[in-house]
């Protein structure tokens, strides 16, 4: 891509399992490959290596009919509700579209149920409105209703609240949270803000330059982050408490895609805990059966004594309770 036609590897060797009924969060900075990952999972981008398996079958082997079923079962909610809705379609038309694509009848009832589910009440008042007559939060609710109208089992959500006002953000988050439980949805939720991920998700994967560097159950990751990058992401979140003594992030700069040819740890150039061992790419290590991290701080064989550094779990503020 780009003028010099360089290939950028946006997502590299990512292994991730989304289990039924689980909300899984993906966090990382802008440019770490989160959205590319979603595009691949949704079948919008093709993969160069590896496989996406859905319900036990690789999507690469999907027939047209399989894709049709997949696209009914897996729905996406995009980041910007100001761009993701067609400005010329009413709420009813926008939500009817996926039903028409999948030739589903009794549309009227399904549309009303979907609108009811996203708490746009009274339903009749919203059905004939156009996007410009709605607030940002209402638009995002419509996008969610549009995704839910096909009764999917998987929802892929790309920063669905980052463009919204605080109060609206809280409303949408708490609504999503109850919908996940009520409809038994599996959710992949992508965000740079680990506090919203913490609120919504059961499990979290931290991504850096296209790789998952750590994954764990949410409370474990927030309480005892192992990877220095996970700690940085948590440390950077402002705390709504004037007495909290948060230290500012020690990270400087931004994820550097140009450094991808390196053979060492991709986070090495920004890592506060860098050691000579980081010249080699770390392999994932399981700290607990459900807690995996790719960092030399946790690998068994330090290459020289500076690499021996025992991280103290819970020394960061995430572990306060």
């Amino acid at each position, binding site marked *: 891509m780009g003028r010099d036609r360089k290939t950028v590897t946006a997502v590299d060797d990512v292994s991730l399992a989304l289990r039924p009924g689980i909300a899984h969060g993906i966090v990382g900075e802008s440019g770490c490959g989160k959205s590319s990952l979603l595009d691949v999972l949704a079948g919008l981008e093709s993969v160069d290596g590896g496989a996406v398996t859905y319900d036990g079958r690789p999507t690469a082997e999907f027939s047209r009919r399989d894709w049709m079923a997949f696209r009914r079962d897996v729905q996406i909610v995009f980041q910007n509700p100001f761009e993701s809705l067609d400005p010329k379609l009413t709420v009813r038309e926008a939500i009817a579209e996926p039903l028409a694509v999948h030739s589903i009848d009794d549309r009227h009832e399904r549309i009303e149920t979907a609108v009811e589910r996203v708490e746009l009440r009274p339903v009749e008042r919203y059905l004939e409105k156009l996007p410009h007559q709605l607030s940002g939060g209402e638009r995002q609710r419509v996008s969610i209703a549009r995704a839910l109208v096909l009764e999917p089992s998987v929802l892929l959500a790309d920063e669905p609240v980052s463009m919204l*006002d605080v109060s609206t953000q809280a409303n949408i988050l708490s609504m999503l949270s109850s919908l996940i439980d009520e409809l038994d949805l599996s959710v992949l939720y992508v965000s740079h803000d680990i*506090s*919203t991920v913490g609120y919504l998700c059961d499990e979290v994967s931290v991504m850096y330059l296209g790789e998952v560097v750590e994954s764990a159950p949410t*409370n474990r990751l*927030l309480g005892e982050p192992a990877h220095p990058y996970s700690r940085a992401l948590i440390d950077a979140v402002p*705390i*709504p408490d004037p007495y909290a003594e948060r230290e*500012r*992030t020690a990270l400087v700069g931004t994820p550097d895609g140009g450094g991808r040819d390196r053979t060492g740890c991709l986070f090495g150039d920004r890592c506060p805990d860098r050691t000579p061992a980081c010249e080699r790419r770390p392999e994932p290590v399981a700290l607990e059966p459900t807690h995996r991290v790719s960092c030399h701080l946790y690998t068994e064989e330090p290459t020289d004594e500076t690499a021996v550094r025992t991280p103290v779990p819970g020394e960061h503020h995430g572990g306060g309770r």
Partner: protein
Amino acid sequence: MTTPLLEIDDLTVTYRTDAGELTAVSDVSFCVEANEIFGLVGESGSGKSTLAKAIIGCLDRNGRIDSGEIRYCGTALTSLSEERFRREFRWNEIAWIPQGSMNSLDPLERLCDQALEIAQTHTDHSAATVDDRFRRAFDAVGLQPDRVTEYPHQFSGGMKQRAMIALALLLEPSLIIADEPTTALDVIMQDQVFRYLDEIRQRTGVGVLLITHDLSVVMEECANLAVLHSGQLAEVGPVTAIYDAPHHPYTRKLLGAFPDVRDPDAELEVLEGHPPKITDGGGYCTFATRCPIATAECETVAPTPQQALESPSQYHLTTCHRSDRLFEHGRSVRRSR
């Protein structure tokens, strides 16, 4: 008593619109001191950006200051001619980082040329002086001074935002109005931007009016804050006093609406609806329609600022008819942390 850096005194701003006269800011008063970051908080439609534009003398054409005064070091800005305001105050004394400002850099001009243009409009500094100052400002916000000759597209979002702050610092203003300076950035870049802003404040004593919807940022960065709702000041005071005992139901709701990484399972406070647009002149509490404890009085009488009950600070004011009841109730349910 010394004169505050910035005084907003009983300010009312209205817009002429097709739907009638819209009251965007209504009888708002607060002060920003030198060497402090003061937070101005509210949702979209609360009037916070209007207030910023009124201070910098850049209201939209259909907007006007109806009553009240804005004073900068004791000088009433509201009675100055545009010419004098531009020559003596804008950028020189009061710099503005507008909302979405990383997109307000000129894509066709090198950053150093944009700096030169600002300096030549407002001062008679030589080009060499401007270049030197701009390089130092770049350094202060953690950018390599050599990169002043680059174009905006060569920078990432966070770097553009810092370049914008460097432009604001160029003429060494005493006050910076920063409107949502980090809203488009991810958390790590946001934290970096605030680190530089705070270092600059400590070094130069600049006063910053930080306008944001993000109360968690304000709780960390600011000493004092004001909460706006539909143009009315709901509450103003030191962040600790307001955090310990919010005296306005809106503030209380806002404080509970933020996810906290320390407690990911806590329920979020849900705030229904949006700040209403006031096109009938007001004369009532603008929060009444969203308030869980509103009474008939709230819908018919505009509340005036009152000293917050039992607050440790005499500058803690609330504008709520029912704040005594809220306070009594609040003491028993307050989150203990």
